[in-house]
């Protein structure tokens, strides 16, 4: 079966295996079918040798977190993420992957009214304690949210879908810090409802493209777009590849992660009222470290505002959140998280800084105290009490 994977990309893998230890599913299973090398070999077998699509092959593909930790580890630069996206797109189109319930679950993401209603229902359900455990929600979902007010038009603050309903306080902190640095900020709100990252991971390519086009239409040209969710930022920086147009390339070039942008403007950031008296472990979201590769900026931005920064010892291995992965594959996601939590415990931090809502919710669900890095900066600047 043709998986529509580029032949040159497939041939770029020499099966050396250097990716294996950087793959979270291989780390927890020790199983070659759950490794990048194994998955690429299976792609080859299916695409080039017409091997049958057995349930084991589909499992191998669907259990990939798409963290892309294998990409920086690959000396030949195999574009694994794009290969897996192509495979999933083909298999989802053929009805072999991404079952209807998963497709339906993602529908509201692109529709703010539906998403808000759904989130409120979830908030009420959570208070009534009828939320299924597999959703992994421990942090309290807010029932009502205060509106984000624009402070100017120098930069966009991308607010997105799930994050805006679950973690709007992070946006508020980002808006305040950008404004304090002298940037007028426009929250994107309904003009750009969703980046399409989760749809893309699930192989729902046409939905992803529609969302990307909608976002490009909805936003004014030439204004930098600041994103405080690593997964969204990675997806938006990939629009050039996704849509293959010069316009999309230009759009992607003005997308910045929050810390990436602020690290370039440290001179404009206010001094801290007092550096937070905290030992902060930086947890690099995969799509910040392995895909956007701008994770160092988080440290640059945080350093003046906290007492101590500490690195985790797992070289950026995934935490298992993976967008909706923790919901679709809770068992593996939990095992992967166990490794991450062990690494966090060895670092003995007061708080973990994570620049991605999926990671912070996934880690928060087992009691890891997480904050978005921009929240820490905001607290330090304003001297606000109580984290």
């Amino acid at each position, binding site marked *: 079966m043709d998986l529509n994977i580029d032949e040159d990309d497939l*041939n*770029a*893998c*020499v*099966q*050396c*295996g*250097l990716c*294996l*230890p950087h793959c979270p599913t291989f780390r927890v299973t*020790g*199983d*070659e*079918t759950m490794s990048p090398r*194994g998955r690429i*070999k*299976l792609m080859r*077998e299916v695409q080039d*040798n017409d*091997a*049958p699509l*057995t*349930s*084991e*092959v589909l*499992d*191998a593909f*669907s*259990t990939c977190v798409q963290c892309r930790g294998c990409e920086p*580890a*690959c*000396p*030949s*630069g*195999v574009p694994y993420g794009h290969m897996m996206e192509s495979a999933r797109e083909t298999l989802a189109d053929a009805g072999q992957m991404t079952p209807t319930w998963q497709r339906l679950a993602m529908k509201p993401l692109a529709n703010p009214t539906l998403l808000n209603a759904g989130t409120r229902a979830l908030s009420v359900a959570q208070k009534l304690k009828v939320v*299924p*455990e*597999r959703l992994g929600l421990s942090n309290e979902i807010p029932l009502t949210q205060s509106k984000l007010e624009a402070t100017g038009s120098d930069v966009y603050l991308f607010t997105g879908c799930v994050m805006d309903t679950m973690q709007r306080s992070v946006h508020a902190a980002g808006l305040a810090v950008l404004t304090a640095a002298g940037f007028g900020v426009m929250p994107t709100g309904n003009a750009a409802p969703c980046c399409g990252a989760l749809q893309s991971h699930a192989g729902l390519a046409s939905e992803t493209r529609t969302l990307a086009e909608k976002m490009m239409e909805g936003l004014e040209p030439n204004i930098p777009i600041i994103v405080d969710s690593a997964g969204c930022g990675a997806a938006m920086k990939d629009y050039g590849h996704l849509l293959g147009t010069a316009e999309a390339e230009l759009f992607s070039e003005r997308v910045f992660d929050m810390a990436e942008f602020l690290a370039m403007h440290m001179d404009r950031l206010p001094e801290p009222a007092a550096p937070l008296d905290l030992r902060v472990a930086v947890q690099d979201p995969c799509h910040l470290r392995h895909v956007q590769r701008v994770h160092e900026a988080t440290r640059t931005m945080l350093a003046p505002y906290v007492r101590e920064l500490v690195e985790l*010892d797992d070289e950026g291995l995934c935490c298992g959140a993976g967008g909706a992965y923790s919901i*679709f*594959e*809770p*068992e*593996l996601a939990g095992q992967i998280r166990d490794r991450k939590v062990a690494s966090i415990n060895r670092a003995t931090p007061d708080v973990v800084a994570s620049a991605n809502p999926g990671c912070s919710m996934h880690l928060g669900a087992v009691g890891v105290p997480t904050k978005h890095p921009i929240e820490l900066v905001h607290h330090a600047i304003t001297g606000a009490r109580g984290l």
Partner: protein
Amino acid sequence: MAGSKLSNLTKRRQRAESSGEPFVDALRAALSHNRVKWDGASRSLHSHDASVFDGGNSGPVVYPETTAEVQAVVRLANQHGRNVVPRGAGTGLAGGAIPLGVPVVVAVTKMNAILEVDEVNRVAWVEPGVINLDLTKQLKPLGYHFAPDPSSQQVCTIGGNVANNSGGPHCLAYGVTNAHVVAMEVVLPSGDTAMLGGLEAEPQGFDLRGAFVGSEGTLGIVTKVAVRLTKNRPAVRTLLMAFDDVRDAANTVSDVIAAGIVPAAMEVMDKQITAAVENYVGAGYPVDAAAVLLAEVDGLDSGVDIDADRIAKIGRSNKATDVRLAESEAQRQLLWKGRKTAFGAVAQIAPDYYLHDTVVPRSALADVLEQIYEIADRYDLLIMNVFHAGDGNLHPLIVFDGRQEGVLERVHAAGGEIITASLDAGGVLSGEHGIGVEKQKFMSRMFTNDDLDHQNRLRQAFDPHCRTNPGKVIPSGHSCADIQSLRSVPNTVWG
């Protein structure tokens, strides 16, 4: 809610009950359902390692977690008349983990605990699936490391290192795996366990530990290893030298050793491989030099500066065009990252490679290299050279596109000539990758019939029925298992 917490994956696995294969069912009863894989995809992936050789035929793939489970697997294999092939990370380059004769593949990746760090005896007890670099990282806070550092260090397992007696850049000063394994528990082909070696300085009797290290899985499966802890040195200096001629780099290496200096490592890369590596790591390798020499000295602060200085002088007297010292630990790490990922980086040039592994006397390095380039020209192949220059361990890397008609024949023919040239110069077949299925046919070039018969008798003393990793190392004429019959098992595997 409990049911809904199980992933689809688990449900599907549990749905399948009897496999229809008594051997597989027996293995599942002894281990667990999901640690015995019998599906086509798993078997297909475990039929290969990182080498260029055609895959074998994997039978069931098992993931034991304890010594007792390894014993159970081996005993069941004996009862069912099946062969056993141990597997670590599958990064071997000589085909040592390729399963021949539809054996049960014993993947030790789940036996990955560091059991004990014994500072008094300066050893750590580890399971075979522990990743080499993970061990070194765990030991770092204590000020120790595991010295053998193969290029695949970030992924290869200690079990695989034991099986192949692995080396690495820093083995020039510290010795290869054999010097760093003190004792080990092994599961013999009978299913019994044995402790080989010991923590005492002079263990009694024959050194069976020494025989086992490097036996490539043909004598049994290692299940616990006591590895030596090597103290981290307080100071290290890393020199990067550029040359206009590979010969000058090779001569520098010989001269350094002749001057009585024993660097921790001395590595050479030629122009083309340097370009590929630099493109990946961006470490500042000089891409216009014909060859670069990476030399590292470690020890006490004052000593390393003197040695680094002496090496730089020797380099300059051999026409080094540029001599640099790594400015920071970060840059040093980046230089080594480049060197250690060299093989993987070649896919930037072509999709396939065949990495050779011969050893020649240091004094013959320059001449053999020249012959290798001549062989490359003659066969119209691209051959790059990246090697552990300090101990004369050559790694000619033939880079090709296997989709081209007839290219594989040329690759193998050129490879044969490289081996011949190395042996003619007084060298040996393998520095560290092992013999596997790769160099069996050259064994008789190196050893007499008597030698080979005695090697086979040692093997049979451990494994009288030739059930453990059959068809490897010892050539068929001298071995109890005939490769051809192992190869001719019909392929009923998925795909």
